[in-house]
């Protein structure tokens, strides 16, 4: 509104208004802000893992196998004498990289498909929606497991690209369905007609005129699916279908032999699971608040 009445103040106000938005989020969404703080801490820990972690996550130490929590090893050590806290800190890197990248990939491709489907309408829309119906009738972990079976492994810079894809692909239909319904109403607006009359290409109308207008649902879904992706990565790694040793990953820390030490080393079970829960909880909290903040009417 302010843009129309006083266009000259817009440029000056932009940074201040942005800061105002952040302040508004913090004051109106205390829970979401708490989630955001946890996310920031995890990100910092993941990025600077080399300097934050007290030990190397992969060095085995047979002198300190299954050592209980002490000052030296606050979360104890595992069956190979590796420091659990350090593995959790490095695990944050694995979880966040895979969670962020696969949610970003899945949500972006999904939004593009959803918007294009709404824009073209007719038979194209019908065909795409029937395919999405089919994909939506499966739990996302089942789809991800089928993808793992199909794609196999493909390591690149220490990250399993195919694992990222296997997690991203099940996200696509969910995001496409929601963004499509948001885009359907945009399609009818005069400025889309105007763009069409101006002779712009379909690609330009979809990318430049429609996509920016589904930004709010896109951002909400993106954060919501980061939580899902982290949970999915942990589950797949737990099943032996995700991240492989010796890469530190939370789900992997709970799988295989590590589960045999319930009596001897409960800390092996306790801390990695807490890390997963905390990360997913924080992203869910932040995502829900972001939804209330950006679009109170929107339901994912």
């Amino acid at each position: 509104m302010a843009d129309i009445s006083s266009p000259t103040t817009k440029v000056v106000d932009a940074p201040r208004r942005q800061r105002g938005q952040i302040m508004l989020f913090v004051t109106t969404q205390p829970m979401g802000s708490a989630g955001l703080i946890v996310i920031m801490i995890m990100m910092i820990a993941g990025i600077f893992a080399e300097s934050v972690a007290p030990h190397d996550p992969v060095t085995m130490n047979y002198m300190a196998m299954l050592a209980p929590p002490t000052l030296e090893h606050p979360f104890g050590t595992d069956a190979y004498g590796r420091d659990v806290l350090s593995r959790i800190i490095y695990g944050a890197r694995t979880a966040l990289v895979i969670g962020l990248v696969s949610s970003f990939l899945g949500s972006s491709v999904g939004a593009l498909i959803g918007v294009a489907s709404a824009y073209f309408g007719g038979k194209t829309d019908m065909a795409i929606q029937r395919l999405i119906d089919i994909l939506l009738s499966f739990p996302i972990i089942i789809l991800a497991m089928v993808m793992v079976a199909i794609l196999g492994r493909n390591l690149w810079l220490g990250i399993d690209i195919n694992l990222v894809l296997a997690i991203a692909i099940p996200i696509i239909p969910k995001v496409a369905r929601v963004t499509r319904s948001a885009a359907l109403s945009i399609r009818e607006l005069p400025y889309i007609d105007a763009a069409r009359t101006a002779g712009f290409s379909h690609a330009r109308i979809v990318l430049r005129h429609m996509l920016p207008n589904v930004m709010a649902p896109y951002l909400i879904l993106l954060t919501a699916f980061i939580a899902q992706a982290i949970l999915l990565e942990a589950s797949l790694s737990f099943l032996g279908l995700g991240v492989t040793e010796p890469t530190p990953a939370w789900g992997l820390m709970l799988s295989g032999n590590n589960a045999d030490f319930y009596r001897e080393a409960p800390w092996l079970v306790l801390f990695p699971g807490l890390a997963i829960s905390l990360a997913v909880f924080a992203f869910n909290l932040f995502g829900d608040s972001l939804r209330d903040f950006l679009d109170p009417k929107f339901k994912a």
Partner: protein
Amino acid sequence: MVTYLLKRLLLMIPTLLGVALLVFFMLRVLPGDIVEIKLSADGAVVSQQALEAERARLGLDKPLAAQLGDWLVGLTTGDLGRSMWTNRPVYDEIATRLPLTFQVALMATVIAVFVALPMGTLSALYRGSWLDYTLRIVTMAGLAVPSFWLGMLVIMMLLLWFDWLPPLGYKPFWEDPIANISLLIWPALVIGIRYSAVVARMMRSSIIEVMQEDYIRTARAKGLFERVVVARHAMRNAMLPTITVVGLEFAFLLGGLVVTEQVFNLNGIGRLFVQAAANNDFTLIQGIVMLIALIFVMINLLIDVLYALLDPRIRFQ
């Protein structure tokens, strides 16, 4: 009613056919040769002849169209082919494991409904109070905790505090009900917690919506006790959207069971699927995917029928 059901059952065929085609082609277009993986599993060098012979035995040497034809024809008679790994009929592999998985799913549903309905209703009626806040945080935590970890915590708690572990090995309920329940109640509880979190959230929002309806005001104006207003008028109407969530979550339970069965060492469908995915056992993956799709369409039909039975405004068309 009968014509409606028949029509709906007929409409399932294109959906199921779509799933069948999709899963078949997805599994074939991509690399990864099961025969090579299987035969060289123990690191042995395999001759070309052995590979060819195995491919012929599994029917993988036929043209794709013939393979697809065989599979689709088999589907109509319930013949899902043979597992590429164990060579047992896929139908038998699934049928021997289905009762266990189905029982856990059913128990989890009962737990979820009994926990979630009061939770969601209370949360909505005392909206904004400390009770609402606590319940909402609990449900959010229920959604964040991975079910395999929750299962491990349950086992650890039983072991460390009670020095007791669930019995090993599954016994059908009618053979040994006590052993059966004392084994399956734990995974059902673990799955049920997440399930009830989802249902409670839905129940909360639909009660909030329903409480603003005119008929609630009318019921109060008639001088009914608030208890009656909530139980007879609000909860009944809020049940409709909640039933959808209960049904869809039931259809999706296998997703949670995939990991939970692993934790509790249960030999169910979830575990079978993990093995199938790890071994690239295409026929087995296809069979289980078809089972999930079939459950999904049946549940959807069931939800629609329940809707019409519970809400007299909805008629079968």
